[in-house]
């Protein structure tokens, strides 16, 4: 056990950074994830197929391609990157925020899929009933739809978190592999495997990776079951 927890400062940083990046990526993609899932599940508009395709693109593109596209768009000289840096002081390139962006984008299709499925399963008659009781559409969403899709929301969030914990290709392409800034667990493991005598460190971080992922999975199961029991769908 001591062997497992006896991490070097750099290794600790990689663990902490990974959790921070994955948490931020998950939380930041929840609001747009819900919105896009709603649009795809309920919207009737021109270009819905295109939007669906765009959302799923990171799932099928090589991660390196996604990372490179992010670099072109959100890099210092990229259109979005330059705009955000100039007006809001938000910089992505070679920062941990960039890692979070890359992880968020890569996990986005998984999150949207899970939420979309749960929205499609909602009985719209319940929402109509809430409307006749005086709730306007926003209140209906907040008090009926949102609680009913909570299990899907949790599942989607955990999937995005797990994906972020394991994201490697897009992250390393977009923000490189800088210890203490952008070196997440997978990057750190990769680095260990590239140097002589790094096996022990790689194995330690691998085991830690497994523990964190398992914990996230178990947490989601427990949460989803608790919510499910409360719902007791008729």
């Amino acid at each position: 056990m001591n062997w497992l927890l006896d991490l070097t400062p750099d290794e600790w940083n990689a663990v902490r950074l990974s959790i921070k990046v994955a948490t931020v990526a998950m939380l930041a993609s929840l609001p747009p994830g819900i919105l896009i899932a709603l649009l795809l599940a309920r919207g009737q508009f021109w270009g819905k197929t295109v939007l669906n395709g765009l959302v799923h693109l990171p799932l099928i593109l090589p991660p390196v391609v996604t990372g490179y596209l992010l670099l072109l768009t959100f890099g210092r000289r990229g259109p979005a990157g330059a705009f955000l840096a100039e007006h809001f002081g938000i910089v992505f390139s070679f920062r941990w925020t960039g890692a979070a962006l890359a992880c968020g984008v890569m996990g986005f299709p998984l999150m949207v899929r899970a939420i979309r499925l749960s929205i499609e399963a909602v009985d719209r008659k319940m929402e109509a009933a809430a409307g006749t009781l005086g709730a306007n559409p926003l209140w209906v969403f907040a008090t009926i739809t949102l609680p009913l899709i909570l299990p899907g929301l949790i599942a989607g969030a955990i999937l995005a978190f797990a994906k972020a914990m394991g994201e490697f290709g897009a992250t390393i392409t977009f923000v490189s592999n800088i210890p203490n800034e952008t070196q997440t667990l997978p990057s750190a493991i990769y680095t260990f495997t590239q140097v002589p005598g790094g096996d022990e460190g790689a194995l330690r971080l691998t085991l830690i990776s497994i523990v964190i992922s398992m914990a996230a999975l178990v947490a989601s199961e427990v949460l989803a079951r608790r919510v499910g029991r409360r719902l007791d769908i008729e």
Partner: protein
Amino acid sequence: MSVLVDISHRLGGFAIDARFESAGRLTALFGASGSGKTTLIDMIAGLIRPDRGRIEVDGRVLVDTDAGIFVPKHKRRIGMVFQDARLFPHLSVAGNLRYGRWFTPPAERYADIDAVVDLLGIGPLMNRRPAKLSGGEKQRVAIGRALLASPRLLLMDEPLASLDEARKAEILPYVERLRDETKIPIVYVSHSVAEVARLASDVVMLAQGNVVASGPTEAVMQRLDLLPAEERGEGGAVLDTRVLHHDETFGMTVLGSAAGELRVPQLAMKAGTPVRIRIRARDVMIATEKPTGLSALNILPGTITAMSPGEGPAVEVGIDCNGATVLARITEQSRQALKLHLGGKVFAVIKTVSFDRANTGAGLPAEADG
């Protein structure tokens, strides 16, 4: 209080073109399935937008397609009880009940939660989840939820249709109390003659998307020819009567009606209580002389005012008994044998035991008229 509906609407291959106006305390939209009653009620609730037309509740215009008016459902303050209850599964019974109240402007909250819970007998259910309720309990909670939003009008879309007979019998008295003890006007969708005859003050009869008859229940329900085929056997006269006294010796109650005294199986109601009864046409026999040596206890003298062919060998005969019309379904053979003709003096004969729970219910209090 009045409801005015005048709409036309097309749904796929089905066209609905209906106009009615009702100021009744409980107006039944009655017709076979597919006659358009649920579409109409959904339009009043704001769940469907009609292609063309106008809907007014109590003088307030909710829909006027010519003027471009369409009040969204959450601003109509019209309560709705759905056939499938639609209780929110993530809320307790108490949470469901309080839901609509929350969205009602405080100045317009007239419904009192204790009174409603008491009226519907749902006090013991407050902490339960909807999934743990029986069908009848769900429906009572759904009624309470709609009432507690303090609606101006209550719509009920076949609230009993998905329940078995025992559950129906459990809910019906609550609907009667709702009709008699609250001031909220009700529009009630049903395809059951028994329910409509028992509950409605007014009936709007629909067939293939059109209104074929409308008016007071006693008058509309006489149109046996308009009843949906599967309900025709249930059709008959609807009479508003009053308990005169009980005959404890034989376990009977004597009712007073315009047509004369009627003896029915004993009812647990005080003398003077109004009782609504339905006399199925198939339960009525006709005699040309006052019968003797007959077991039937109810023999009402009257005059034949209408005769029309019924289904198969049947003839439907309307008998005016001192102002109240009793309907009888007999065979053409009997009609000829008895030489029945319009204006002929006859006796309507009804067995006491033909009155069962399904066709005796609490009558509308007298002040309901008008």
